[in-house]
């Protein structure tokens, strides 16, 4: 039943939602709107009963693995526990139901939270200029690069058209640079998985605008050269952008602003427990150095006497989305930061690092881990040897783990590791869960044959045909198909 589409449940005339009668004083639609704009009939949406809708979407939901139901060690995504208090408070009347164009005097409570959040993110990052507007991490990258471009423009350095990205970087980095009008060059990783300084040096020149760095990087390693990297880039007249995807490793331990970053984004849905929502919404607030703050997109919240008000920075690059920002997500981040407070955020990162290292200490006896026996909040193992010896690929491991009741790690990323298996346990999983996961991984490496090749076995579907999907795309339901 769950695999029926809602359209296939439709019956002409069946209904769920009802409206009151139109006011008696109302004129007919045909009097109010010209005939030529009117459709002959409304769109062909499904016609179902309320009970249909509920059963359909409840049953569909149970086909998902989620943090609420399963260990979800998806590397780079920080699938930590999503606190239920965040959900409750974010939807309070007066928070969840405020119109975005209400003026400051009618929305002081929200503005106060957003103001305080700006402050807190400035403190956590060490970068005091904050814009909460970007809607996602990638959006924050783009926005920050537009800020950098505006800054260079104003300085008369519009020749700075190149953005450097690490070869281990998230794909969003080069794509964002491209959208912001930059060309990109990749900087190599060295054998230790860190930035190859010589390669970096060779690519720095007066065309360099920004070096986009992820630190800890996507291998889960803190690049200890970061101070030197920042000096090199700054000496070359460029700026350092920090991809904040991995901030869960260093809260209260090291601040991007202190180790040389000039701009960065946060992923509140990762670091600050905003739920991932099946793919979103996230948010991508950015933090920048003082001298870049005037370029931030508006509005930002400023103090105004006893109250707060929205204002565009003086040299703002302009808006990057409608209205203020993803307030619903940001409120959750606010609640999260307030919950841990000054005592707790460092502990979050410590436990995230501890959990990852603990799991690493188990996994390195099962899979090869090319880059060291210590990590920050995640690590990248490789199934390269298993693939060669036993035809057991990273994908096989991922699929078979599903049968053991675990979501798969990220696989085949970062690209610099062959048959990569990227594991991020987060601080909100128990030692018992990590032990069970390591044990499952071990068992899988002992398995073979159909058990592996046809995994997963326990799921509703198994190994969908991606190639067919892309070759002849079916992107919507059609009657009779």
């Amino acid at each position, binding site marked *: 039943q769950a695999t029926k589409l809602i359209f296939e449940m439709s019956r002409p005339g069946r209904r769920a939602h009802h409206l009151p009668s139109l006011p008696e004083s109302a004129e007919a639609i045909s009097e109010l709107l010209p005939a030529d704009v009117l459709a002959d009939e409304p769109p062909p949406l499904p016609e179902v009963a309320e009970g249909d809708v509920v059963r359909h979407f409840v049953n569909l939901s149970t086909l998902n693995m989620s943090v609420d139901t399963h260990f979800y060690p998806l590397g780079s995504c920080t699938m930590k526990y999503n606190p239920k208090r965040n959900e409750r408070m974010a939807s309070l009347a007066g928070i969840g139901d405020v119109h975005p164009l209400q003026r400051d005097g009618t929305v002081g409570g929200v503005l106060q939270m957003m103001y305080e959040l700006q402050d807190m993110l400035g403190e956590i990052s060490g970068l005091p200029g904050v814009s909460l507007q970007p809607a996602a991490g990638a959006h924050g990258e783009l926005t920050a690069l537009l800020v950098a471009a505006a800054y260079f423009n104003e300085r008369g350095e519009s020749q700075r058209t190149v953005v450097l990205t690490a070869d281990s970087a998230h794909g969003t980095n080069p794509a964002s640079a491209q959208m912001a009008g930059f060309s990109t060059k990749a900087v190599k990783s060295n054998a230790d998985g860190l930035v190859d300084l010589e390669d970096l040096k060779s690519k720095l020149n007066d065309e360099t605008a920004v070096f986009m760095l992820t630190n800890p990087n996507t291998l889960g390693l803190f690049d200890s050269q970061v101070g030197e990297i920042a000096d090199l880039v700054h000496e070359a007249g460029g700026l350092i952008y920090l991809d904040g995807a991995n901030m869960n490793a260093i809260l209260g331990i090291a601040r991007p602003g202190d180790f040389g970053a000039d701009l960065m984004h946060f992923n509140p849905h990762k670091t600050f427990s905003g739920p991932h929502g099946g793919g979103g919404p996230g948010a991508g607030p950015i933090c920048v150095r003082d001298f870049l703050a005037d370029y931030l997109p508006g509005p930002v919240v400023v103090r105004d006497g006893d109250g707060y008000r929205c204002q565009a920075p003086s040299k703002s690059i302009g808006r990057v989305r409608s209205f203020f920002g993803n307030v619903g997500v940001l409120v959750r981040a606010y609640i999260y930061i307030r919950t841990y407070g000054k005592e707790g955020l460092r502990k979050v990162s410590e436990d995230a690092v501890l959990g990852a290292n603990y799991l690493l200490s188990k996994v390195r006896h099962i899979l090869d881990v090319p880059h060291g026996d210590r990590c920050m909040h995640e690590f990248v193992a490789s199934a390269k040897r298993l693939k060669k010896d036993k035809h057991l690929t990273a994908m096989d491991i991922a699929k078979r783990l599903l049968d053991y009741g675990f979501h798969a790690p990220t696989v085949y990323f970062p690209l610099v590791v062959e048959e990569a298996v990227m594991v991020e346990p987060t601080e*909100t999983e128990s030692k018992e869960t990590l032990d069970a996961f390591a044990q499952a991984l071990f068992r899988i490496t002992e398995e073979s044959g159909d058990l592996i090749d046809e995994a*997963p076995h326990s799921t509703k579907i198994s190994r969908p045909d991606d190639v067919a999907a892309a070759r002849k795309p079916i992107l919507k339901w059609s009657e009779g198909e």
Partner: protein
Amino acid sequence: MKGYLFHTDDDRREMLRSIGAESIDEIIDGQVPQALQMQRPLDLPPAADEMSLEAELRSLAAKNCSVASHICFMGAGAYDHFIPAVVDEMASRGEYYTSYTPYQAEVSQGNLQVMFEYETMVSQISGLDVSNASLYDGGSAATEAVLMALASVKKRHKVVTSDAVHPQYLEILRSYLVGIEAELVVVESDESGCSDPLIDAIDDETACVLIQHPNFFGRLEQVQKIADTAHEKGALVIQSFDPISVGLLKRPGDLGVDIAVAEGQSLGNPLAYGGPYLGIIACRKELMRRMPGRIAGQTIDRRGNRCWVLTLQTREQHIRREKATSNICSNQTLLALRATVYLSLLGPQGLKETAEHCVVKANLARDRFAASERFELVHSGPVFKEFLVRDREADVTGLMRRAAAEGVLAGVPVSDVAEGACGGRYDDCFLVAVTEKRTETELDRLMAVLDAAQVGDSVHLAETV
């Protein structure tokens, strides 16, 4: 330690033993150079327990007017439509909101099927072939559509639009176009509040035309005519539409539009001071591979069962990196779910009736303004659910403030939407939006409050709300 940590001190000791480390500091010091570490605790408020924090948040929330405490006539791109309880309950299931992008299709069929159903419904309401799984919001979706068009129509760089498009959407467009070879032409709308003048601005250099229908003023555009002209000139047409409006109005695809975008907030998503919202985009099949963002598609699995996967990923940044169609990585699945549940509940008839309520009640409100002494209707032609009112006393801000103190969010001053919106022509005007939620009693209340307001009435909102 307040919060959500699991490890007891015993756990930590055992874990360190397995790692072979003396302490967590040792692990960190081994990787993060001391010189780069913070030498002080973070300067943040102290940790707060749930009970105290909730009490604080409740008192902050109480400082805000809201559509629960106030009668809301504010619109301008975000609307107080009714959200059925089913929508909230479905979206509050942990299996939806605590899962992530369906990288493992086998354990994500729930989200994938929702995406596929969402895409189908977007296709149904837009009248176009293909939708993605959502974008950030209506404003950035309009810009993404322009970028799509610029990439599709080779060697043309002109983007023609009008100031009857949401002023913030135009601001976003300006911000994004900085990095790209493009010329933005914003034509002034005519006295009737329509964009007919932009027809003359469409030329052989034009890559695309961006219009909004119903437009920022609530007025209806000559979409078909604009589209015909654009197509004659070889340009693509992008329409930003109101997803509620197509309960009555012809759909973008029916009007010859190539790419349709919309703000999906209206479809069961809370106002939330502006976000997260839902960017809807749909296009003709030919443009499919230029579409940004995630797309779910149908396929079969190993066992031959119909199922759903993310597809056409070769457009995306994680594969194509700098050559991707866009940098977008996440999407708004949870809001797309809400829209899907919402549209399932409404069905064709519910959507139609909702649209009827908007039209009918907006016109009842309009009649009341027309009859008032202080106010003037700026445009006279038909509107959908919103219309522009001029305050002859030119005290729009004072008026809104006074109304808020009386429990009414009376409208949106044009100048609040964006600085210099519409060239300042409407700085003495405000938009009034009327959704199906409003009752005749509330319309009367609106007029009573506005009529009672005196120019220069000084209200300190901090005291009154």
